[in-house]
C-alpha cells in the first residue's frame, strides 16, 4: 500500500509540476481557468460565431487587435516594409525601393526615412544594437505608432465627453474629446497629439488628431512624420462583437499625398473580464538586454585564424 500511495503522490506531483507548462495557453474567459494575464483566443475561436447587433454610438470594451494578417508585419499595415512575396525581411537595403506597396515620399520624407534605422523585420532592418529606434530606449511609442505597430489588445472607455483609448502595448492612453471643442491652433506638440472625435452616424466615430511631436516614428519600420501630420481614424462598429479601424496619414512635408495606413482593420470584442497582461518599457531592462545580448550580437565576425 505505501508503494502504491507513493506512486500516486509522485504522479500527481509530476502533473502539478508540468501544469504551468501544459496549461499556460488560455482562451477567452468562457474557457479559461485563469482570471489574470489572459491570452486572446486563436482565430478559430471566432469562426462561425454569430454576433448581436451593434450598439449605437458605443465603442467601449476590451478589443482584440491580434486578428489575422496584421500583427507580424512591421510597417503600417497597408504598406509593409517587405518585398513582394514577403521577402526581404532581414534587411540589407538603405531605402524602400521595390517594396510591395511603396509610399509617396517627398524628398524630405525620403531623407528622413534614411536617417531612421529600424530593428524590426523589414527591408531596412539592422541588428538592434545598431538601431536608433527611440523605442529601444523606452521613449513613448506615441500616436499614431501605437496603432501602426503592436495594435494588440486595447481598451476603450466612453464617458459623456470623452472616448479614452488604452493601449496594452507599453501601457499608453489617449483622450479623444467628444464635447465639440475645436482642435487647438498651433499647440505645444505632444507625444500623442490632440484628438477630437464625433459620430458621423450611429456606428461610425471619426477622430482628428494634430500636434504630434517629431520625436516618434510613424511605425516600427522607421517611417518618418513631421509636426505637420494630421491623422484621421474611423472606428466603425460593425456589430456587437466587431469593430473596424481605418487610419489615414496626411503629412504634406513627408508624403506627397495622404495615404491609408490601416484599412478596416478588424477588432474583436473580448469578454469584459479579460485581464490584459502588462507590458511596460523599462529603460533599465533595455540597458540590461543591450549589455547582455544586443551588443554581443552586433560584434563583427572575427577573422578566420
Amino acid at each position, binding site marked *: 500500500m505505501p508503494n502504491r500511495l507513493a506512486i500516486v503522490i509522485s504522479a500527481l506531483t509530476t502533473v502539478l509540476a508540468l501544469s504551468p507548462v501544459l496549461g499556460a495557453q488560455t482562451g477567452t474567459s468562457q474557457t479559461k481557468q485563469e482570471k489574470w494575464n489572459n491570452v486572446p483566443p486563436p482565430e478559430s475561436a471566432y469562426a462561425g460565431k454569430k454576433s448581436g447587433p451593434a450598439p449605437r454610438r458605443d465603442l467601449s470594451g476590451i478589443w482584440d487587435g491580434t486578428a489575422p494578417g496584421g500583427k507580424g508585419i512591421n510597417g503600417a499595415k497597408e504598406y509593409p516594409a517587405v518585398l513582394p512575396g514577403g521577402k526581404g525581411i532581414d534587411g540589407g537595403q538603405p531605402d524602400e525601393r521595390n517594396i510591395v506597396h511603396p509610399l509617396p515620399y517627398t524628398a524630405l520624407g525620403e531623407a528622413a526615412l534614411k536617417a531612421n534605422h529600424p530593428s524590426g*523585420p523589414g527591408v531596412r532592418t539592422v541588428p538592434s544594437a545598431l538601431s536608433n529606434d527611440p523605442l529601444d530606449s523606452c521613449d513613448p511609442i506615441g500616436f499614431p505608432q501605437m496603432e501602426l505597430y503592436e495594435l494588440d489588445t486595447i481598451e476603450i472607455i466612453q464617458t459623456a465627453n470623452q472616448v479614452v483609448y488604452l493601449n496594452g502595448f507599453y501601457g499608453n492612453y489617449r483622450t479623444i474629446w467628444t464635447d465639440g471643442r475645436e482642435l487647438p491652433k498651433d499647440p505645444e506638440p505632444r507625444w500623442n497629439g490632440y484628438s477630437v472625435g464625433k459620430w458621423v452616424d450611429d456606428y461610425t466615430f471619426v477622430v482628428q488628431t494634430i500636434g504630434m511631436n517629431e520625436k516618434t516614428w510613424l511605425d516600427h519600420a522607421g517611417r518618418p512624420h513631421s509636426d505637420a501630420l494630421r491623422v484621421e481614424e474611423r472606428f466603425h462598429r460593425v456589430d456587437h462583437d466587431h469593430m473596424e479601424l481605418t487610419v489615414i496619414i496626411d503629412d504634406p512635408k513627408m508624403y506627397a499625398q495622404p495615404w491609408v495606413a490601416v484599412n478596416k482593420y478588424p477588432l474583436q470584442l473580448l469578454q469584459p473580464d479579460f485581464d490584459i497582461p502588462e507590458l511596460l518599457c523599462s529603460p533599465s531592462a533595455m540597458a540590461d538586454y543591450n549589455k547582455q545580448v544586443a551588443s554581443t550580437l552586433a560584434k563583427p565576425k572575427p577573422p578566420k585564424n
Partner: protein
Amino acid sequence: MGKTLAVSLLTIGLLTFSIPLFAHHGAASYDVSKTIVLKGIVTDYVWSNPHVFVKVDVKDDSGNLQHWLIEAQNPRSQTNAGWSKNTFKPGDEVAVDAVAAKNGEPIGRFTGRIVINGQVFKP
C-alpha cells in the same frame, strides 16, 4: 565554427519560423538558413522585456562548456505562445531548436521545438 559543439546541424533551405514570431526585432543578426539543436542545462531564465531569454550550458564533444544565451520575444508575446515565468528553471535539461548568431557568438534565438527534462513543450 571552431570547436564542435554538442549540436546537430539541420540545414534547412527555407525559413523555419513565421513572421509574427519576430515582430519586434528582426533576424538581421542570425543565420536563419540553419537550425541547430542546443542541448544542455539551464543556468538562468529571464522573463523580461524586450526579450525573454534562457541561458544554457552546452557541452561540446571534448566536454568543454559553452555558455549559450537563447532569446525569445517579449513576455506578452511569450505568454501568448503559452510560456510563463515558470517554463524553465535552472537545472532543467533542455534540447532547443535555434538559429545562431552570424558572428559566431554563443547567442541564439528559439525557432520551434523545445524539450524540457525529456518532455516536448507543447503550450
